[in-house]
């Protein structure tokens, strides 16, 4: 049984800020949704179903906020699904929305992911003591820093590679009007001079905490043919994989769930050499060193070689595989939306609508997200051409 084709036909984002005190939650979501609908040339009346994604409800202090958001996001009278897969949720949400179309059940689906974490306290929300579970009151950086240290030890990477990623992403962000951090003049030297937070992760190698939302309109082949959209981002393949937080011999530097997911995606899309065949990638890098780590996990580089891609400039905006052209999670991080932003930015690239951070001639782009303790992975490959 082969599935129906689906493509992204509308993308909308909010401006990302530490605190969006100018809007309520419905206002924030509408900012992204209205832009996505406008981009798709549609109104709420054209939409068959809505899929919402966000990370923990404790981030806003509202239990299942999609219930109160139902009418402001145009879901009244329609099917509404709410996805939550930790930090990978933005990607998973886009995949679930695409499934609604690929299954043949719906023609046009609106999906939106958000976090307005300034309305509660994210650190508190992540630090609630739980029976039977070892508390890690170290924040996300404290949790991931040992993995980064382990990666550096295993790969022998020069210690400034993380700073190279941070400088690149922050410079890319200056080309993205929606980016939260727009730090002109960020260089490898200024990153290395920033405060050490969780050795070896420095302040400037760390993602911000943002308010923001991202929305997509996904449509079927038939609906696209009947619309005026001429540059859909066709979904060539998508995948989700999960594994437990801890088990004997689990490799948290290069998790099997991520490796399996990438291998499945490349196989499904007929890609045998990802580095040569993928034109650009938006991958989930909340701490700078995750760029080289994920390069290996995704199969763009062999074990221990991911940092060489970064060091060579291959992942720069003008490199052979530009990574995080938008500035990435390092520059804007509304957690529940961050994965969907990766998926959306990949779509914008193949639609040719990425503005100043457009990669010339991008035909195939990867969107990637991960969550939990590097346990949950969601990815899609979008293309300018209809999948063969």
């Amino acid at each position, binding site marked *: 049984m082969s599935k129906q084709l689906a493509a992204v036909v509308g993308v909308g984002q909010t401006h990302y800020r530490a605190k969006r005190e100018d809007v309520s939650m419905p206002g924030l979501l509408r900012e992204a949704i209205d832009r996505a609908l406008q981009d798709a040339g549609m109104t709420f009346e054209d939409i068959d179903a809505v899929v919402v994604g966000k990370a923990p409800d404790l981030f806003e202090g509202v239990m*299942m906020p999609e*219930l109160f958001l139902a009418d402001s996001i145009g879901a009244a*009278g329609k099917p509404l699904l709410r996805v939550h897969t930790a930090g990978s949720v933005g990607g998973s949400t886009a995949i679930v929305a695409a499934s609604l179309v690929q299954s043949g059940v719906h023609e046009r689906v609106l999906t939106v992911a958000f976090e307005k974490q300034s309305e509660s306290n994210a650190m508190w929300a992540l630090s609630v003591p739980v029976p039977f579970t070892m508390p890690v009151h170290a924040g996300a950086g404290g949790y991931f820093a040992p993995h980064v240290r382990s990666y550096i030890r295993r790969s022998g990477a020069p210690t400034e590679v993380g700073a190279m990623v941070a400088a690149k992403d922050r410079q890319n962000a200056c080309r993205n009007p929606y980016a939260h951090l727009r730090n002109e003049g960020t260089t490898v030297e200024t990153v290395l001079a920033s405060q050490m937070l969780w050795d070896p992760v420095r302040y400037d190698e760390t993602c911000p905490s943002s308010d923001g939302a991202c929305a997509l309109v996904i449509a079927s082949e038939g609906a696209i043919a009947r619309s005026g959209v001429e540059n859909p981002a066709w979904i060539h393949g998508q995948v989700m994989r999960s594994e437990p937080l801890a088990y004997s011999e689990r490799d948290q530097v290069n998790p*099997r769930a991520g490796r399996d997911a990438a291998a499945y995606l490349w196989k499904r899309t007929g890609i045998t050499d990802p580095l040569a065949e993928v034109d650009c990638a938006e991958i989930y890098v909340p701490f700078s060193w995750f760029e080289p780590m994920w390069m290996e996990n995704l199969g763009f580089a062999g074990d221990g070689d991911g940092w060489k891609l970064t060091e060579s400039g291959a992942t720069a905006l003008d490199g052979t595989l530009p990574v995080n052209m938008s500035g990435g999670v390092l520059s804007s991080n509304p957690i529940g939306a961050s994965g969907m932003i990766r998926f959306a930015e990949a779509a914008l690239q193949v639609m040719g609508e990425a503005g100043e951070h457009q990669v010339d001639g991008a035909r195939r782009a990867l969107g990637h997200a991960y969550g939990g303790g590097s346990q949950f992975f969601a990815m899609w490959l979008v293309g300018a051409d209809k999948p063969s």
Partner: protein
Amino acid sequence: MRDVAVVGFAQRQTMEFDGSPNCVELLVPILAELWQQTGWTKDDIGFWCSGSSDYLAGRSFSFVTAIDAIGAVPPVSESHVEMDAAWSLYEGWLKIQTGEADSALVYGFGKSSASPLRRTLALQLDPYTVTPLWPDTVSIAGLQARLGIEHGRWDERAMAEVVARSRTAAADNEYAVLKGATTVEDVLAEPLFADPLRRSDCAPVTDGAAAMIIAAADSPRFRSLSLSTGGAAWITGFEHRIDPIGLGSRDLLRSPSAHVAGVAAGASSVQLAELHAPFSHQEILLRDELGLADDAVVNPSGGALCGNPMFSSGLVRIGEAAKRVWAGEVDRALGHATSGPALQQNLVCVMDASTGRATGGRA
């Protein structure tokens, strides 16, 4: 659409847990039961999806450790909805329809007893205008019940009849936490709890979990099923809708989302319905909205009034309906799930004894 059947279902419900098991401890024996029912193992499952709530668990990422119950390797194709597991079933059904999977195992879990449930659920309301007033679930249901009485839609006796019939029906349900013969007079003799609701008009606070396996008929793996439970219940109608939440602007005597979902799924032609009605009057309201036939059997398991494990109760309703189809008691049955205050969001799953898709449902 591919023909997809419910082929396995397991549940646990309790009003109190000795030793307070975590979600993994809840799920492992239930999954084992599913392997026993189907002859399958983890390797036969193409997609996994769960439903739960962080707020119910009082922590972020409550579903994260649940995947420990699946096993470590290989990693699984998996998703999660912050909804009742009935909606995770929908996501699993979708995944099978895309052709990316031939089977799905879905599960839900929650410990409603971990906090004052009615107060926790007040956090589902509009956080800017309503939540600060802390109207709790039972009070909101009380407003709905009162409105129905004032409009002549039902009376306290009709509500008590729902309770008595449910408790009596639950006598045969090993998983029901409230059961046994109860008369209308017994119920009416109870003091008022949240006028006009008595305690028995309200679902008990229940902990629990449930899991279900669905599979596509056109897959080679389907033929490897060894069904110890007797059969398959074919999903022939599957729809869900949501209404705006606004308590002041909604007509609380209507549930348009239930109505539209019911019509689209083919509810009017079922012989049996398991309705997720956490309050007695809501069964009456749902019967009307879904357009059930007068002779349709409703909640032969006892329904949510006899056990309401949050985030799996809707899936339990679908499972209980499927079991009646497996047993050959009926040819067509319906499972229903609700979410949000006062029947705001509703899902209807219609199942048939055969694969023929002669219903009004889209599936």
